[in-house]
């Protein structure tokens, strides 16, 4: 694409991009108006999770793999559990599935609130971080911290803690909420509504950069009426639909030298996952209040502006709160069968039959679709593991956006260009330390 301002030279090198999870660098070089380099380098030291899972018990998998990422630890746990249960042939009870959906909703609210307020908002109001906002926007900062605190407290009740949940395991839960717990959770969730409404109003007042680049959007899809987060097939805006077991046909990973995370592609040379992808594919299934939020925020599908991922996250936060209120209410009404609480440990007693098998988990993490795959031997030990993480799937697309964006903003000052690029990457809410361990089985 020809640059608008011929002759311009530009060198952007952002080392250790801030306000994202993990370590990544932005490198853009323009020489004489021509784009010579345009990369998002993942420089996180590899952690080799797939390799070190080999030989460990399948009952340890969710404990270890939730440590891939502290921000979406619950999504990693749930994906890991789904894969392990498929490998072992366990079908979770209806109660377990409901509790897992509730947990995932809490994870989405927590993660989206963190991103919208503490990671993205500073750029949109011209601040370097939430710290100066304490003085200029004290009420807003307090609201964000209060919302996070409440959701954390709810997660504590449900699974012991939000960062690396304790009681969610293969087969179900080691602890189940009491009627009093459920009542309190239901009340606290309803009490979150005013803060959520204020969040929508805040985001509606912000001006997001204008930019469009149509791409392929990938998310879980399903034929039922539920907004698919915990279960579904792999779907794309280019019409692809695959069972989750076929995830490798969807992701097509390859190693690139400048990034310790691999790149992926499907129908085109890049695709996007995350809140905007889910909104584009599944917006009709959002809760009525979330649809109303989308209307207030002016978000319409299909939306091709990656900066508006933050807006889609806001809509999803509303949806997840509404779903969580519904699920907590349902559990309260039906009552929780506490005899389902498990004592499993590492299954030393062999309570859960093990077998040689293979399982794939596919769950929407806040940042996009997440895959885990395990192969087990007949003793229930992992012989091979594979994790494909949302940020990886977005990397090639982020670079595609950068290549399209730079020529459009080349007339701006170098500082403005750098900030805009940082905002672009941040809008994907990348989780870089997650993205550095991918494997071919």
């Amino acid at each position, binding site marked *: 694409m020809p640059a608008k301002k011929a002759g311009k030279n530009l060198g952007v090198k952002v080392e*250790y991009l*801030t*306000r*994202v999870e*993990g*370590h990544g660098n932005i490198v853009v070089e323009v020489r004489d108006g021509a784009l010579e380099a345009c990369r998002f380098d993942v420089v*996180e*030291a*590899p*952690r*080799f999770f*797939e*390799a*070190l899972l*080999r030989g460990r018990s399948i009952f*340890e998998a969710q*404990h*270890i793999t939730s*440590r*891939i990422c*502290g*921000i979406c*630890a619950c999504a990693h746990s749930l994906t890991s559990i789904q894969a392990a249960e498929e490998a072992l042939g366990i079908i979770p009870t209806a109660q377990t599935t409901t509790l897992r959906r509730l947990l995932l909703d809490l994870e989405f609210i927590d993660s989206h609130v*963190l991103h919208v307020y*503490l990671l993205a908002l*500073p750029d949109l109001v011209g601040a*370097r*971080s*939430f*710290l100066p906002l*304490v003085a200029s926007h004290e009420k807003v900062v*307090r609201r964000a*911290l*209060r919302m*996070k*605190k409440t959701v954390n407290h709810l997660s504590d009740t449900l*699974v*012991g*803690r939000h*960062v*690396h949940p*304790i*009681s969610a*395991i293969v087969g179900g*839960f*080691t*602890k189940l909420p009491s009627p009093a717990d459920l009542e309190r959770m239901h009340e606290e969730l309803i009490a979150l509504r005013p803060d959520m409404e204020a969040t929508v109003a805040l985001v509606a007042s912000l001006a997001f950069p204008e930019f469009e680049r149509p791409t392929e959007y990938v998310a879980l899809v399903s034929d039922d009426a539920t907004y698919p987060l915990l279960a579904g097939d792999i779907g794309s805006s280019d019409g692809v639909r695959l069972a989750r077991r076929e995830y490798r046909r969807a992701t097509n990973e390859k*190693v690139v*030298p400048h990034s310790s995370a691999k790149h992926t592609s499907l129908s085109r040379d890049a695709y996007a996952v995350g809140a905007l992808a889910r909104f584009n594919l599944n917006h009709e299934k959002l809760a009525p209040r979330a649809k109303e939020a989308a209307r207030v925020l002016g978000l319409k599908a299909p939306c091709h502006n990656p900066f508006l991922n933050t807006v889609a996250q806001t809509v999803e936060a509303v949806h997840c709160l509404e779903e969580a209120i519904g699920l907590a209410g349902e559990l309260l009404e039906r009552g929780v069968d506490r005899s389902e609480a*498990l*004592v*499993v*440990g*590492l299954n*030393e*007693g062999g309570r859960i039959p093990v077998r040689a098998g293979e399982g794939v988990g596919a769950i929407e993490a806040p940042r996009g679709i997440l895959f885990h795959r395990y192969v087990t031997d007949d003793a229930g030990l992992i012989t091979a593991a594979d994790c494909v993480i949302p940020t990886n799937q977005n990397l090639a697309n982020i670079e595609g956006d950068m290549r399209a964006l730079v020529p459009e903003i080349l007339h701006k000052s170098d500082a403005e260009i750098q900030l805009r690029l940082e905002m672009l990457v941040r809008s994907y809410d990348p989780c870089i*330390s997650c993205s550095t*361990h991918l*494997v*071919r089985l």
Partner: protein
Amino acid sequence: MRRPRTAFFDLSCCEGCQLQVVNAGELLLEIVNLIDLVEFREAMSERHDGPLDVAFVEGSVTDEHAAARLREIRGRAKVLVALGSCASTGGVNGMKNAFDLAEIGRVVYGDGRRFFPTATTRALHQVVPVDYTIHGCPIAIPELLTVLKCILAGIPYTVPDQAVCTECKRNENVCLYDRGVTCLGPVTRAGCNSWCVNNGNICYGCRGLVSNPNEKGMLQVLTSRGISLEHVVRRMEMYNRCREEGPERAR
């Protein structure tokens, strides 16, 4: 009193311990009033290259780049705090040390492994002197606050050196051994208030081993329950593998 100039850094980790700091909720605002927070990459764009009073470092040292970075941070910080298991014991990253490094590179990256050199995982104190240690995967907010108070008061913090079982008993949990599963509580350092057992799970040993574990007692429990030592050693490798490498292991 001048507020201590404080920064947070992360080496190889999941950033869950930093997230626990953010999860302190509105308490966070009180914390940032007590300190002069100058760098926290996960949540701030501000950077600081000068001298520091307090550096919190999360994550393990898994390559030479990280070791150099840690030495550089140590060089300009009066007080260095190891934040979380990755930093204090090597954490889950230490599991890597049970394998041949070239081989795990091949497993994950195939022919691309040459792009990603790696080294034996080390805890911070295996590379530089550490002044305060906050154990846990993730850290517990109450302990973070206690350590913060000690740092502000200029007094040392002594990590509890008894077994998780002591807290577990006080919490009146039914012992998991009596429920037929293996728990690492008897040899693991307390301080988390038996967090996992309270939630129906086993202790995985995330806070590292007590300095003087009751090996005989543990062996007795295992023998009486017919659990093999190998099974337990394997469990302990999840968080304590780096210990085997010794404290000041050369590179």
